[in-house]
């Protein structure tokens, strides 16, 4: 044993040396002089510098385009998200994906919008072991706010809310732009091909209220996508194929032997169907013949195709009546269209080894899905599963769809989830790239909260329903003595507008996922969130300018020359509300819930009423009723409100009238 002091000293010195050599190494690693820069590295560096430069230019161009150059309406919320997103990232670089929450404020005293990210960020930091007061984070965010065109000031409130006040001049400018350019969609990042599959009734069967929902919602969605600038294909996936056509054709041949030359007068296809069904069930011969007919139809024998077409045409005419009433645009592309493709689909699944035999059926199991898809029945026939697979494949590859939306009742939700999962499994689409969605909806209930039926218990025929709507709408108009004010032509127009508008609006204004109660009394009420109320409100706004004798040209000119003043609280509230239109549309685009648009229009109408009640647009002499003064900027606010409402109606498929 040596002297421990010497011992320790030696060890200490040894350690000192090691520390020194390690520090030296660290230093040398910190300043890597030896890393000789290869020409390739230089090239890459230069390329990188150029790319960064370009990125900067592109970002700036994008912003310019949004702010100045385009006629598009600006999505204020989105712009605020960008501005705050930048500030949030700058103030908290340690968080990879900091939450971004900017929402409009309902209470004026808290500003116009608010950013609530600070609290969530504090939580995230806490999870990382860093304790920061959310107020501090909020302060940092405010400090890091980039220069921007839209915020006037911000305040931090409560635990860390940031209240955002918009610049009045900015809002005013946006309103002027809106008036000059009209209601234009927000800028389109990329134009997409959108397929909307809706309505889809069955040939030889009656359309019912379920089809009504699909038709109304699908049409409105299509209109929304079109307004936003996308390329929309509306498809009517009618049920026009299957064994039932065998018996229909057999019956047709018996009843109208000369059907090839003389068009058979079938007015009630429903009855015709019943007759043939009866024979099918009762007559063995007929049944046999019906099967033969199926085979001959499937082998495309001309006479049979002709018979099939005749039957389909009868249904088509019926459907079209409904579509005409509701102003629906749609292309028929029924199950028959996919017949040939189904063989291909089965082959493809087979080749990829995704088919399994199950008691003579060929089925596809999709991981994570409880039920398999049956693509070939034990008799060798195909199913809805097969045709839906063929359809999705055709829509992805032939139609080059970026977005496919199926509007059917929620009961089919599970079925479509399996179809979508199978299509992804076989590699037809990547959900990151292609958006395929089932927009399901709840059932229509009667006022008794039970399934919607006639008094006699039958399903309600759609045409009957629409006709009743027309009748009730006329009753209402007469009740209000509008028939004494309007011309006959105007009256009819108003009748249709109100009747069909109310049916559609009643449907669209409810969250589509829920069941909804069908009630003519409620939908025709001119108080509350109904089409009747909105249509009245709209015509009233339109009449303000008319009654002040201001024509459209004057308004157009004023839009360019008159600043929209927003000093009054109600003016300010209305102005902001008008400009929320783009963010409402953006939200619907994300969740496909159209009732948000109805809620917004209702809010706009009530906000307008508040404005109109407290701000004179036209000042009249109390005695003579003569116009003394026109507050043009307020006329412009009326005009902007009306323009946005009109566009909203258009998307909902409602036809407003000038007078009602």
């Amino acid at each position, binding site marked *: 044993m040596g002297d421990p002091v010497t011992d320790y000293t030696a060890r200490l010195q040894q350690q000192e040396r090691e520390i020194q050599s390690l520090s030296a190494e660290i230093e040398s690693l910190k300043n890597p002089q030896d890393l000789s820069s290869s020409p390739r590295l230089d090239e890459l560096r230069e390329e990188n510098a150029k790319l960064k430069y370009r990125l*900067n230019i592109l970002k700036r161009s994008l912003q310019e385009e949004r702010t100045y150059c385009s006629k598009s309406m600006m999505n204020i919320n989105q712009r605020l998200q960008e501005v705050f997103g930048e500030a949030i990232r700058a103030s908290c670089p340690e968080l990879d994906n900091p939450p971004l929450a900017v929402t409009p404020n309902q209470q004026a005293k808290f500003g116009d919008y608010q950013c609530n990210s600070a609290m969530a960020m504090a939580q995230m930091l806490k999870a990382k072991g860093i304790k920061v007061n959310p107020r501090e984070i909020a302060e940092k965010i405010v400090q890091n706010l980039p220069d921007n065109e839209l915020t006037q000031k911000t305040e931090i409130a409560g635990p860390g809310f940031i209240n955002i006040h918009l610049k009045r001049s900015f809002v005013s400018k946006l309103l002027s732009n809106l008036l000059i350019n009209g209601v234009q969609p927000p800028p389109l990042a990329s134009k997409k091909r959108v397929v909307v599959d809706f309505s889809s009734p069955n040939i030889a069967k009656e359309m019912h209220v379920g089809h009504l929902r699909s038709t109304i919602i699908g049409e409105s969605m299509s209109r929304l996508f079109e307004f936003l600038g996308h390329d929309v294909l509306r498809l009517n996936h009618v049920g026009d194929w299957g064994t039932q056509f065998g018996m229909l054709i057999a019956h047709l041949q018996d009843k109208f032997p000369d059907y090839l030359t003389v068009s058979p007068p079938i007015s009630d296809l429903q009855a015709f169907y019943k007759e043939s069904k009866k024979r099918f069930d009762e007559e063995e011969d007929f049944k046999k013949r019906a099967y033969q007919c199926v085979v001959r139809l499937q082998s495309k024998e001309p006479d049979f195709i002709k018979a099939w077409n005749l039957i389909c045409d009868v249904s088509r005419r019926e459907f079209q009546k409904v579509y005409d009433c509701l102003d629906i645009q749609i292309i028929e592309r029924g199950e028959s269209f996919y017949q040939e493709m189904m063989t291909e689909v089965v082959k493809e699944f087979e080749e990829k080894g995704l088919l399994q035999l199950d008691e003579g059926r060929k089925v596809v199991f999709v991981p994570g899905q409880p039920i398999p898809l049956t693509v070939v029945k034990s008799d060798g026939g195909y199913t809805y599963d097969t045709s839906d697979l063929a359809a999705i494949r055709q829509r992805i590859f032939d139609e080059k769809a970026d977005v496919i939306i199926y509007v059917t009742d929620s009961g089919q939700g599970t079925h479509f989830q399996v179809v979508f999962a199978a299509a992804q499994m076989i590699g037809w689409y990547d959900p990151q790239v292609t958006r395929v969605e089932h927009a399901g909806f709840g059932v229509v209930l009667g006022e008794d909260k039970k399934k919607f039926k006639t008094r006699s218990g039958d399903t309600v025929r759609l045409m009957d329903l629409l006709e009743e709507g027309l009748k009730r709408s006329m009753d209402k108009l007469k009740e209000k003595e509008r028939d004494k004010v309007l011309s006959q032509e105007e009256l009819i127009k108003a009748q249709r507008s109100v009747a069909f508008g109310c049916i559609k609006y009643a449907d669209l204004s409810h969250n589509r996922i829920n069941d909804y109660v069908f009630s003519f009394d409620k939908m025709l009420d001119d108080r509350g969130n109904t089409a009747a109320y909105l249509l009245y409100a709209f015509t009233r706004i339109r009449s303000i300018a008319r009654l002040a004798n201001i024509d459209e040209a004057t308004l157009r000119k004023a839009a360019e020359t008159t600043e929209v003043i927003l000093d009054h609280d109600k003016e300010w509230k209305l102005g902001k509300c008008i400009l929320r239109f783009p963010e409402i549309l953006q939200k619907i685009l994300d969740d496909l819930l159209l009732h948000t648009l109805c809620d917004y229009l209702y809010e706009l109408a009530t906000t307008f009423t508040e404005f109109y009640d407290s701000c004179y647009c036209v000042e009249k002499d109390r005695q003579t009723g003569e116009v003394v003064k026109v507050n043009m900027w307020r006329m412009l606010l009326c005009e902007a409100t009306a323009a946005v409402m009109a566009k909203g109606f258009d998307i909902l498929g409602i036809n407003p009238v000038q007078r009602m």
Partner: protein
Amino acid sequence: MADTLTLFTSIGLSEQKAKETMKNEALSSALKEAVTQAQRVHGASGVDKAMGTLLYNMASRLKDAKRLAFLADSIVQRKICTELQLAAALDFVKSHPQDPINQKEFEEACGVGVVITPEQIEDAVESVIKKHKEQLLKERYHFNMGLLMGEARSALKWADGKVIKNEVDMQVLHLLGPKTEADLEKKPKVKVADNKVSTGEVKSLMEQLRGEALKFHKPGENFKTEGYVVTPNTMSLLKKHLDLTGGQIRTRFPPEPNGILHIGHAKAINFNFGYAKANNGICFLRYDDTNPEKEEEKYFTAIKDMVEWLGYKPYAVTHASDNFQQLYDLAVDLIRRGHAYVCHQRGEELKGHNAPPSPWRDRPIEESLVLFERMKKGLFAEGEATLRMKMVMEDGKMDPVAYRIKYTPHHRTGDEWCIYPTYDYTHCLCDSIENITHSLCTKEFQARRSSYYWLCNALDVYCPVQWEYGRLNLTYTVVSKRKIIKLVETGVVRDWDDPRLFTLTALRRRGFPPEAINNFCARVGVTVSQTTTEPHLLESCVRDVLNDTAPRAMAVLEPLKVTITNLPEDSQVYVRVPDFPANEAKGSHMVPFTCTIFIEQSDFREVMEKGYKRLTPEQPVGLRHAGYVISVQKVIKDAQGNVVELEVNCCRSETAEKPKAFIHWVSKPLTCEVRLYERLFLHKHPEDPSEVPNGFLSDINPNSLQVISSALVDTSVKGAKVFDKFQFERVGYFSLDPDSTADKLIFNRTVTLKEDPGKI
């Protein structure tokens, strides 16, 4: 063929002349048209020789073909009958390029219908002779008769010159009688003892550039220049231009800020700044900074320094980049007018001759507008799109590029732009924006003149006139930026301002005075032809200036110690040396003189040689300025037998026999470094592969730089500042190098005293 010949001879041309005319296609077709027009009026043989000659002269001198019919008509109708009228007519159409021609003004200007009677001529000549009678009688026929005719003619503008001459001759004869013997004697030439001519055989630059010396157009008369394109808007644009400039001459010196100026630029600077200065105009210094990749701050300041060093002050310093927004707006306008389109051909496809025409040439205007905006917004990668102008250049190049994409920040505009305009697009428009009257450039740009005019006219903006002058080339050097970089990189020269180079900074460092460079430019002249000049011409200009400006000093480059034995060891006197011996009034300085002095080794020889006039053991020599003559007493040698010191006797020069030569010397000197230069290249044209097959780098003169680290210089240079210049007696002109420190001065030899040094 034969028909044309007959046609031409029918108006009185000789057959030979007619044939010659036919060789010139343009002239031939013009003349044909004119003659045909004449014959329609006067019949196939009705065009007489006088009219024919007028037609011929008109056709050959007319620049603007659209006036041919009009002038031919005037001749045919005998409105224009004389050469004088024709000249006036041609002048008139030149100054009135726009339709319509005011017939009345035209006829007035050409003296149409003016009839001069013989009596009028007689009277006019009589009054002129009366005026000069006294002088005439004195000088008789030695009198300048031209003067009489000139005056008579100006009195009668449209009179026939011949008739006037006859009249003058007659009246003079009448006055003086026939010539006598004395009259026939040649008048003795008066010796012109004009100082100007003897001191400088060339006119000063300002004189060369002043007034009409250059045949340049007057401001606002752009259209009078040959080749200038007149459009329907030209006249109103010129008027606006004149209103703005007040008729002032405006030029610009437009260097690209991507390198150092060289001697060639000195000419451009002198020409542009000089022309403006000589004519009370203004000159801009405009940096042509459209290419972001090449620009560096140091070049900007260096260029301005050099301009100022040469003695010029820019009216304003501008940048092409100041106009980026305006240029962009003009480009959009150009597309709208259908004169430009966005093209996607790759750079490689357009290289070389016969590049395929662009398939995008005829794309719709709207499309180009959108795409051009997208270029600006960064939607294309570099090289994916360019904006091209729809025009063919003189050299056949199709559709030059106006804008290209570069994701590079710009020295002045930062990250604002990612499209940058080209020279072809920018240059003329910046000239136009600055209302330049004379856009002076070297001859290489002649090929771009038409694109210059085309672009201004395509946009309906004021169009300056481009004038070309010959580029200045020097032998025994290279000036291109790339080559100089090579020289610097390979260590042949120290830097851009190495005194062996001909960059302006190098010349300054070497000690060339700016006046000398300007004089040199004047000597080379402002001719249009390309001039290749040898450096010795420049050097001689340098000597001319330094002779009068660089004070004398004495320096010994290779010293030999000399001890004067018959002076006391501690004796020290000061000797007065005039700064300029030729003009002692310009001052003097004192240098010490002690018993130890140093002389050049070459000023002493142990063995006498015939013709050698300086110091030998047998031959004394005088010491400049000291008033002493020394004679060798003892030669001290080292072990190797080299002479290391001399011991001498001195005596006052008044008492001594006049020595054959005087040499320079120093005593108690400063030790300095001296750098001696020779030309950098061995061959006259180092870039010419036939002269130097292995490239200019193989042609370096190994002796181009000689450094003498311990030369001895007299104390008068103490405290000299950088670039101070001296004449070291018998050694050369020197300038203080910026490398000098307080402890050690460094001198560059600017030039030797005489063109060919090395005589013994």
